[in-house]
């Protein structure tokens, strides 16, 4: 499989990465090189094989459903580029 220019534009948008029109042909070439590389996998018979979901056979532990941390709003906001009155600030989302 290979991607066309429109697909590159669509993937960039899905990944929320702005790309200029000038970059798109180069990205197409690179993505197609990788897709060609992974084509080797088509040769493997995977019928009846379970996809791996956990690399070590281990049950995820359960913990008590209690608050373990919190009341640290200033720390949560400490690295934000823009805050106001204890909130993150973003451009208006709802008209």
């Amino acid at each position: 499989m290979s991607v066309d220019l429109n697909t590159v534009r669509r993937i960039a948008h899905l990944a929320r990465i702005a790309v200029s029109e000038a970059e798109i042909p180069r990205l197409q070439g690179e993505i197609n090189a990788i897709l060609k590389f992974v084509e080797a996998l088509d040769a493997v018979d995977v019928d009846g094989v379970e996809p791996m979901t956990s690399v070590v056979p281990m049950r995820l532990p359960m913990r008590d459903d209690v608050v373990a941390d919190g009341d640290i709003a200033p720390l949560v906001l400490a690295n934000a580029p823009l805050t106001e009155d204890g909130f993150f600030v973003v451009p208006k989302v709802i008209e």
Partner: protein
Amino acid sequence: MTDLTTLTLAEARDRLKSRAISSREIAAAHLEAIERGAGLNAFVAVTADKALRMAEASDARLARNEAGPLEGLPIGVKDLYATKGVHTQACSHILDGFKPPYESTVTTNLWRDGAVMLGKLNMDEFAMGSSNETSYYGPVASPWLPPNWSRDRARAAALSSEKRGLLTPGGSSGGSASAVAARLCLAATASDTGGSIRQPAAFTGIVGIKPTYGRCSRYGMVAFASSLDQAGPLARTVRDAAIMLRSMAGPDPKDSTCSPSPVPDYEAAVGRSVKGMKIGVPKEYRLEGMSSEIDALWARGAEWLRAAGASIVDVSLPHTPYALPAYYIVAPAEASSNLARYDGVRYGLREPGGDIAELYEKTRARGFGTEVRRRLMIGTYVLSAGYYDAYYVRAQKIRTLIKRDFERAFADGVDAILTPATPSAAFGIGEKSSDNPVEMYLNDIFTVTVNMAGLPGLVAPAGLSSDGLPLGLQLIGRPFDEETLFALGATIEQSAGPMALPEPWWS
């Protein structure tokens, strides 16, 4: 007086304990070495004041006989470990100015045991790379001289930010490997998603171990591919790596994939006999067109283990050729999900936009480097509607087959598997083209299988190439059997003889 930076971690520990040297002295000696070695670009942040304060506290504990296992030992930390109030950016521009208000579990464990932090180490951006060339902070130079280069020529090249022609220390833990090999720190933390501890260890003539998935907590490590990422140390001897890993590893309620099993005394395994062990040599690792040098090194490694009383058997791991292509689906897919958090809202870089989507897109375009953007787009594509089954699910099925290959070999009584670490010795900075990313990816061909199967893998230096550059051998173990790897690694280390690390041309 001996140069305190040439001591091994174990030697320094013993001298600190006997009070022959002080932690302040050895920290100061390393801070001076870091300053002289600035041209290598191994450190992205030096925490000199913090180091001296920690060292003084260690000296006080040593005086009271309250020393921890790493008391007073100065180490470096890869930039992807969250260190409270200290530069933590995984060498990406998108985490510009980020200083976490919390500490990773691995570094918490190290400080608990008395280690002293010298600073943060350079790496490929978000650990995506095999040469440390994708770092926002520029490439790292290896302390090894390129073949036929004079010290003066290398020193001049190290003054430039491109470092063109100097050797790469490998990646992604390039800063960690360069700093340890150049004696800028006694040991360092690193991390390994597809070979990022083991390939740099091989390229710089030092020791690295990626432990079993779940042996170290991932809490506070900047995530790349969560089902593959694992912490581990880089050090100059097998013993030093064992000492480091014992402190780094251990249960952690903050990471549900972290193993609850207690950590053995890995150092006790160093020097343990390997007599009677069965070592597998997988024929699928003998690549077409592989250099005869690598082949000879591999055969020599097997011979050393045989001489130490182990038996060598042929094994087959038939799905080996599919590990790297499957990795380049699984890792970018997980990365595209993990790196969705960098949106210009909660931390790091923010590029203004007219609406929220534009803010995201502009921030991520400016904040991520070329390789990261490429992988995020691949990851997004293989997870997108209509392609998920063909790519991602198929790759995860192949991962099951890769793991099964190893399980069969171990079920047949094999204690560990011996392979080359890399297909070649270190290459030059700027040497591999960026037009075809696959060329760089092939560096991980021998290491990536281990991450796909969650197994432990250790690389120890085993000799020099015809150009005089270090080459390493890899040992792959059963899950949670790092001890066998330390015993076998020490045998390789001893048989190969001491690796003469390069004299400082960089100061």
